[in-house]
Each structure stands twice: as structure tokens, then as C-alpha cells.
């Protein structure tokens, strides 16, 4: 008799979802699905609003990564205005975007995933959280909080507030950087650099204890996609899209992000509110790809900052070809924090950053605009169409977590097959399945364009729909 195990909802992630694990007659895992159970409809209710409201309206999609949406939304509006955004505005937007990536990565790694890694997948559930980390390794917890604060503080200095600043606007940014703000930011960099270097040195040896997880946490061939700059280095703000395959070969390069719809298609499944994007020329599922820190580390020729490049060299040694195991998202995330801090320093050291010319003014000159940038979780696309009054008639957002949808489903199937072998579930088994999802740091609020609580329910259901085992976590 076939059965289904349901993990609902999944904990320590951002948003609402559940997992169902399907067992065959012999009790072996036959399929696993990641269901996103929330629906938001941003694309619909923005219709009829003035286009220049879009960056801050769309940023409300998410309280974790509002800046990413602000940036992508503002870039789409720049296209509508058809203006050349002043260089200083681009540099300032880059700083804010990198700060967002640093704070979000710090949240993902230190607050959500480090309990699994530092305390162990099978450690008691009551301790497997940030407070457990504070007890077990206070230095790590301190550094996590410090790095998150570093990113949030810069966002606040630039945008006036940490969450939902509205400083990034169509045509540039609303206010220039002051010398005092620059100095405050520069003063916080040495401490942040020390914190991330200490973390990398401490955590890298611990990763070695997770060989089994490395082999089974979404370790499968797939494509990887992300932005690279003109020197094929790590890029989060502009650049062109590059896609590499599982052995590391570039299969598509210098793709114009503005024309994403020519090579990316979205597939809809009835059991989840999240769509499945794929690379059109290869079709579904062969054309599915991963995005985010792991993908970015796989597609680039180098990071472009000295310390991050050293870490990247170590990352490249993990596997031949592209690094396939989704477990390495964690390492990639830490490298990106390091890169972000170095890059912010480079941008702040440039005198141009203080220019007061940081906005271009225009009326709409295009009826359509696409904005693509790299959010913490991967490539983020905003696409708006307007009428002659400047009111939005149509909008489409492809969110980073959405790109990873197929990969997350494959990842949990692989982990479930390896770790769940009986009718009876243990906490460690289900935690590993959830931990696969945490590798991707999915932001489901974004990807379904919800709010809610995070307790978890896991059900084991047989083929007739009877619950034969249930585990409830709060």
C-alpha cells in the first residue's frame, strides 16, 4: 500500500509551505513534493497604479529582502523612463543591494541553518535554534548578529529605515550620501570583515562532518544561472545572464536580461502556488536551473575582490565541474558576505560616491520596462507594462526562490529517499528533509508574491488518505 508523509509547515524558513513524501507499497520513498501554500497576487493588485509607485509597492512583497525588490523595481522603472541613471546612483544602489544580501545571508546562515550545522541534524529540537547557538557557540551567534546589523545599518543610513526604505526610486535614488554617513559605514567595515573571516575559518572544518548530507542534499546535475559583469566576475546589480551546465560548461552567455521572456518559460503545477521556470531551449525538466549563491559561484570566472577570491578558489576545489550539492549553498553564502563587505568598501572609497547628482528625471518614454538584479536567493526579475497615462496595465515578477522550485523538489526527493526508509518518522529524518529546503533559503512570501506562523506538521498518509503517523512541532 502506498503512503504519503506530509511535513506541514516547514520550520526555520521564510514563508508558508509543506512537504509531502510519497511512499510506495514497500514503504520506500517514491516521490516528494514541496508545496507552497500561500498566495498573494501582487502582480494583479498593482494594476491601475502609477508606475513610479512600483518599486516601493512591490518591495512590500517581502520584509526580508525589500531592497532587492526596490532595486529590480526601480531598474524596470528606469527602463520605462529610458534615462541614463547617474553613476553615483548606481553605486549607491549597489551598496544598498549588497547590504541587503549580507544581512539576508547572515539571517539564513546564522539564525536559520547554523543550528543544524553546529549542533547537528539530530540534536534535540528544543535546542536546535539560535538560542541553542548562543549557548553552544556564543562567538558564532555574536558574529551572526553583528553581520546582520552591519547590513541593516547601512540600509538604514541610506534609506532612513532598515525595513522597507523607499530611497531607491525611478531614475536613481532620492538623496545623496553625506560624508558623515560614508564615514560611519567605513568605520563598521573592519569589524564585519573580522566576523566573516572568523566564521569562515570556524565553520569550514565543521562542514566536513556533513559528508552524507553533501552527497544527498540536492546533489544532482542541473543548470545554474545568474548575472556576471563584463569581466565575468560576481555581479549583483547589472550585467548579463550566464547559464552553465552541471560540468561547468557555459551553455548560454551574455543573455540580455531585458529579454528574459525569450529564453525563460514558467510552468504551472496544480499542487503548488509557486511556478516552475525553466530555460526554454532545453524544455522542462531538462532546462530547469538553480540560482542564488551556489549558482553565482558556479557561473563566475572570479569574484573580483581579493579575500573572496581566495575563498572562491577553495570552493572551486570542492567538486570537478560545477559544485552540484545544494549543501554548499551555505559556503557560497558566506563567501558572498565576504565579497559584499569588500565590495562596499571599494565603492565607498571612490570619491564619486559623494556626488549629489544621483537622480535622472524624465517622463515615461517606454511603455514597458524590465528590471533584473541578483537578490540574496538568486536572479530577480520585475517586468511592468504601462498605458499612456503611466498606469500599470500588467506586471510579472520572477522571484529567485521560484527559479529554484524544481531543484528544491528534486533535492527533497533525494534526501527523503536516502534518509526516510520506514513507516515511522524520526525527528532527525524529517529535519534533514527540511534542511534541504533551508539550503536554498527560500523566501516563499516573495515567491508567491504570506504572512503566518511557522509551526510544523508532518503527516504520514497511506494511499487511501488515512493518517498513519503524525508529528507536530511548534
Amino acid at each position, binding site marked *: 500500500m502506498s503512503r504519503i508523509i506530509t511535513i506541514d509547515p516547514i520550520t526555520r524558513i521564510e514563508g508558508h509551505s509543506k512537504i509531502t513524501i510519497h511512499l510506495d507499497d514497500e514503504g520506500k520513498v517514491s516521490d516528494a513534493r514541496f508545496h507552497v501554500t500561500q498566495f498573494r497576487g501582487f502582480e494583479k493588485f498593482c494594476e*491601475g*497604479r*502609477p508606475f513610479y509607485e512600483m518599486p516601493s509597492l512591490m518591495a*512590500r512583497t517581502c520584509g526580508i529582502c525589500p531592497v532587492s525588490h526596490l532595486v529590480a523595481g526601480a531598474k524596470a522603472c528606469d527602463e520605462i523612463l529610458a534615462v541614463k541613471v547617474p553613476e553615483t546612483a548606481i553605486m549607491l544602489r549597489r551598496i544598498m543591494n549588497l547590504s541587503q544580501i549580507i544581512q539576508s545571508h547572515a539571517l539564513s546562515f546564522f539564525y536559520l541553518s547554523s543550528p543544524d550545522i553546529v549542533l547537528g541534524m539530530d540534536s534535540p529540537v528544543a535546542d536546535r535554534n539560535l538560542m541553542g547557538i548562543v549557548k553552544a557557540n556564543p562567538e558564532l551567534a555574536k558574529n551572526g548578529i553583528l553581520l546582520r546589523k552591519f547590513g541593516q545599518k547601512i540600509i538604514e543610513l541610506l534609506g532612513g529605515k532598515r525595513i522597507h526604505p*523607499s530611497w531607491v526610486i525611478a531614475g536613481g535614488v*532620492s*538623496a545623496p550620501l553625506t560624508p558623515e554617513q560614508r564615514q560611519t559605514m567605513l568605520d563598521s567595515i573592519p569589524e564585519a570583515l573580522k566576523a566573516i573571516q572568523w566564521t569562515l575559518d570556524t565553520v569550514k572544518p565543521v562542514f566536513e562532518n556533513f559528508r552524507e548530507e553533501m552527497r544527498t542534499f540536492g546533489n544532482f546535475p542541473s543548470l545554474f544561472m545568474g548575472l556576471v559583469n563584463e569581466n565575468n566576475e560576481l555581479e549583483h546589480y547589472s550585467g548579463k545572464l550566464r547559464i552553465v551546465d552541471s560540468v561547468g560548461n557555459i551553455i548560454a552567455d551574455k543573455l540580455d536580461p531585458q529579454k528574459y521572456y525569450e529564453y525563460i518559460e514558467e510552468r504551472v503545477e496544480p499542487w503548488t502556488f509557486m511556478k516552475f521556470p525553466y530555460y526554454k531551449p532545453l524544455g522542462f525538466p531538462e532546462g530547469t536551473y538553480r540560482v542564488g549563491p551556489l549558482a553565482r559561484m558556479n557561473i563566475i570566472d572570479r569574484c573580483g575582490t581579493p579575500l573572496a577570491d581566495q575563498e572562491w578558489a577553495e570552493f572551486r576545489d570542492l567538486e570537478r565541474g560545477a559544485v552540484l550539492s545544494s549543501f554548499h549553498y551555505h559556503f557560497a553564502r558566506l563567501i558572498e558576505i565576504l565579497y559584499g563587505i569588500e565590495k562596499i568598501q571599494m565603492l565607498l572609497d571612490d570619491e564619486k560616491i559623494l556626488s549629489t547628482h544621483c537622480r535622472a528625471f524624465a517622463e515615461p518614454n517606454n511603455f514597458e520596462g524590465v528590471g533584473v538584479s541578483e537578490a540574496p536567493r538568486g536572479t530577480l526579475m520585475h517586468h511592468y507594462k504601462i498605458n499612456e497615462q*503611466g498606469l500599470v496595465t500588467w506586471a510579472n515578477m520572477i522571484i529567485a526562490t521560484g527559479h529554484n522550485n524544481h531543484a528544491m523538489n528534486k533535492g527533497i526527493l533525494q534526501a527523503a529517499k536516502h534518509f526516510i526508509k520506514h513507516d515511522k518518522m524520526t525527528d532527525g529524518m524529517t529535519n534533514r528533509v527540511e534542511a534541504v529546503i533551508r539550503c536554498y533559503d527560500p523566501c516563499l512570501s516573495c515567491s508567491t508574491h504570506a504572512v503566518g506562523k511557522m509551526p510544523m506538521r508532518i503527516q504520514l498518509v497511506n494511499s487511501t488518505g488515512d493518517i498513519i503517523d503524525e508529528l507536530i512541532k511548534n
Partner: protein
Amino acid sequence: MVTPGKKVKTFTIDGKDVSGTEDQTVIEVCRENNIEIPTLCHLEGLSEVGACRLCLIEIKGSNKLLPACVTHVREGLEVITASERLKKYRVKLLELFFSERNHICSVCVSNGICELQNLAQKLGMTHVHYPYLFPKVDVDASHERFVLDNNRCILCTRCVRVCDEIEGAHTWDIMGRGIESRTITDLNKPWGESDSCTSCGKCVAVCPTGALVEKYKNAVDKSFKYKKDKLKFLPYLTTMREVKNEQS
């Protein structure tokens, strides 16, 4: 301000002895004596309509609540401006404003410089206890410089009055009744096609919310001057009103 030829009346506001001339309203005397009364439709320099009802006061001896902006002073009045009952009613009134149309402050271009939002914070409105109605209302962005978003309109009619009484254009009016009421230009033509509008922007300056705003701009813009400089604009309104009165 004492008007020559008018009789002076003495009365009390919140126990304080005050005086005003017979042509003055209670809200004017309150303002002169630094007694705060919340309001959204009253604006010095414009005529009074008593539309928002936030300036409700109690008069000793009467069970009725009266709007201070259209209640003239009388000898021996005992006015109460801040009883618990009044505070409760004012918060309820604000909640009704927020429940009727879409006033989602977080995504409104007037966020931070909105009189409705400021008042809600000041009077301690914490929740909206009524169901949100949010009728689907279109935005009129046909004007080359300004936008009308009826979703944010509270029907205070400041725009109607400033356009008629100061600019002399009378472009604005209110159409329909109840929840169907809409601020319109000319005979419900798109604003951009209005024959009477002089594009002076006074309506935008006096609008307390994000209903009338400058195009392509929001509150974070330094150049969003009209609303931010409202206080500088008020003496101008008063002067123009006086000039007009003298002429007529």
C-alpha cells in the same frame, strides 16, 4: 481676531475663559487660544463645510455633538473639546475613513506627510474595527503634472473650495452619494481634458492625503514641495480670501 463692528461674546472652552466676536466659529477661537481640535476639512482661508466631523465638541446643556468649524460663538457657551466620549468618537471617525477607501499608508506616495495618517497616530488609532470596503476606484493620471487617486480621498472638499474660492476656476466637484461619491473635474471629464483647470496646483497643496499629488513624485522626493510646504501656503490662502472679500 476681533472684527470691527461685531459684538464680542465671552464664554468658556474646557473651563478656560475666552472671548470672540459673534461672526467667529468655535474652532477659530480655539486656534487663537492654542486649544487643539483635530480637523481634516477645515483650512484657514477657506469657507467651512463641516465635512470631516473630527472637530466635534460638546456644549454643556445639549446632548448633541456639534462641529466646532461651523458652530458660531455665543455668550455664555460652555464648550468641551476633549472629553473621553469625544476622543472615542474621533477615533471611530478615523477608523471609518480608513475602512472605506484604500489608505494603505505604507505604499502611499504621501506616506509621512499625510494629515490623515498623522491624526491617526496622534489620536492613538491602533486598529480599524470595521470591515474594509475598498471599492475599486480608478486613478486619473491624465493631467500632465498631477494625479487624482480617489482611493485616498476622504471627501473633505478642500480642493473644491480652494479651486472655487481662491483660484476662481471651480474645476472640482463631488459626484454621487455615500460610498459612490467621487471627486471629479468639470462634468466628470478626465482631469487632463478639463477646460477650466488652470493647473495652478492649489488643490494638490491643500489635499490632506495622497488623493491629489504631483506626478512621478512621492514623499521621499525633495521636490515634492506642494504638500510639504503647505504651512507656507496657508497665509497666502488667507490673504487671497481677504482680498476677495474686500473686492466683493
